């Protein structure tokens, strides 16, 4: 594969994008998981699918070339993020309801646009399950821009995001502007989901945000350690998953998630044996 990566730009783009989302998805995922918002990624990925389907439809019917399906996906994802945050404000006592509402609207719109664009084709298949050969140079630049934006915001607002995730009331009393930071956070999530979809696909993007974090939480002692381990597990899964996907000719979404799941299973087993050993000793 190394030869192929060196020789084919599109594979190289995929590999770089994979490395970037392998970092971004678990990084944001750590905050998402501890805030008990794991399902938000599923909600947003389906809204992104609606955007992608809209883009495919526009491309097919009106040869809209200025915006690719990737662009319309990002736009829909950000709109979906704002809708979710507003709905969470409306249903204060049942905040989680915002996610199924957004998810079903996303799926509904996707079905309509896919049908209007004359049904499922190979393009949409690549968006659903990921692809090793779908990332153009301009896509890569967009993903790179997302990465810089997200990393800079997290570096600046790490303490605020951490405090809000742990105890929102205390954070608000301390003078943290919770509302603005929540919006910023969910928009970053929307961007990372849209970026990750090229690699892992709509249906599996939430897995890349939660499985590495679930694995890291079993062994990390601190919050910072959880982030670092999550990123290591995320990168490992992406690299192994992309290589396996390439050789086995399977969409990488599947191989990346299976690798993550194996890592999780192994970690749980090793932790169990380790604890049993400690208690025995």
């Amino acid at each position, binding site marked *: 594969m190394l030869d192929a990566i060196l020789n084919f730009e599109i594979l190289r783009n995929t590999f770089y994008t994979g490395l970037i989302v392998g970092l971004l998805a678990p990084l944001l995922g750590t905050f998402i998981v*501890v805030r*008990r918002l794991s399902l938000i990624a599923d909600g947003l990925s389906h809204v992104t699918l609606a955007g992608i389907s809209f883009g495919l439809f526009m491309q097919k019917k009106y040869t809209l070339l200025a915006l690719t399906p990737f662009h319309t996906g990002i736009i829909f994802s950000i709109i979906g993020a704002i809708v979710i945050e507003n709905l969470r404000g409306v249903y204060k006592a049942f905040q989680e309801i915002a996610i199924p509402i957004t998810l079903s609207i996303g799926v509904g719109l996707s079905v309509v646009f896919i049908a209007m664009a004359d049904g499922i084709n190979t393009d949409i298949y690549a968006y659903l399950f990921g692809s090793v050969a779908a990332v153009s140079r301009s896509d890569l630049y967009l993903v790179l821009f997302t990465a810089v934006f997200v990393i800079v915001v997290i*570096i*600046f*607002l*790490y*303490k*605020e995001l*951490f*405090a809000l995730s*742990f*105890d929102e*009331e*205390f*954070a*608000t*009393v*301390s*003078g*943290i502007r919770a509302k603005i930071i929540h919006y910023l956070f969910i928009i970053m999530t929307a961007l990372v989901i849209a970026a990750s979809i090229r690699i892992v696909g709509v249906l599996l993007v939430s897995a890349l945000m939660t499985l590495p974090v679930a694995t*890291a*939480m079993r062994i*990390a*002692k*601190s*919050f*910072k*350690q*959880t982030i670092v381990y999550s990123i290591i597990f995320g990168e490992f899964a992406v690299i192994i998953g992309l290589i396996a996907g390439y050789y086995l000719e399977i969409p990488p979404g599947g191989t990346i998630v299976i690798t993550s799941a194996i890592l999780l299973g192994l970690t749980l087993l090793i932790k169990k044996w380790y604890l049993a050993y400690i208690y025995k000793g």
Partner: protein
Amino acid sequence: MTNLITVNGVTHRYDKHKVLEDVSFTIETGSFVGLVGPNGSGKTTIIKLILGLEKLQKGSIEAFGKPIEKFHNKGHVSFVSQKANSFSRGFPATAKEVVSMGLTSKVSLLRPTTKKYEYLIFEALDRVNMMEYANHNIGDLSGGQQQRIFIARAIVNNPSLLILDEPTVGVDTENVQQFYQLLSQLNEELGITLILVSHDIGTITTHVTDLLCLNKSVHYHGNPGDFEHMTDEQRSKIYGHDMHTITHDH
């Protein structure tokens, strides 16, 4: 003595239900105020109003000489909530990381946690006798130890006023006395003004300098000693509610 907080004619409703009616009182600098009242008496609401977590409907509140609407908390006021014990136990954070959250108004990654901040965190941990647990996961600590960590988080930024809403919920009775002693120390040694919300009058009267009985409106505000010498009947009258004092041997 100057007034840190002045509450004047505050009335508050949730939908049609009136929870506070014409409440007025002042909190003096350096005092240790016990805010007591039965469940549903509006204790948490008045605290939320003072902390700016709830919008003022009628009346006025001044904090540090400024109307509460214009008061921006830059570490002057800190808070330990009753919910501190019900945070998700599996949260992957060490005690030290939890305390560092109290410095959010001062620190961000661009101004990295320098030795000075590290020193402040350890000083706060030492103050609450939890130094040796700095690197323990917060979920692995007992209810009383967790609450000490939350006190450390609240004092690490060196506040002038510390508000505690039912902080002993979930703390076993053995540790409750030590916990109140710690609060007295913060008040006497560091000069932090304290407002302690509780429904357990019996225990707190021995520690506080002022007692404030709230049941929709203020029923008593003064010396806890005078309150202790009253008969149960007099107290019930003041309290505006049937009440029983829980006495604790210590």
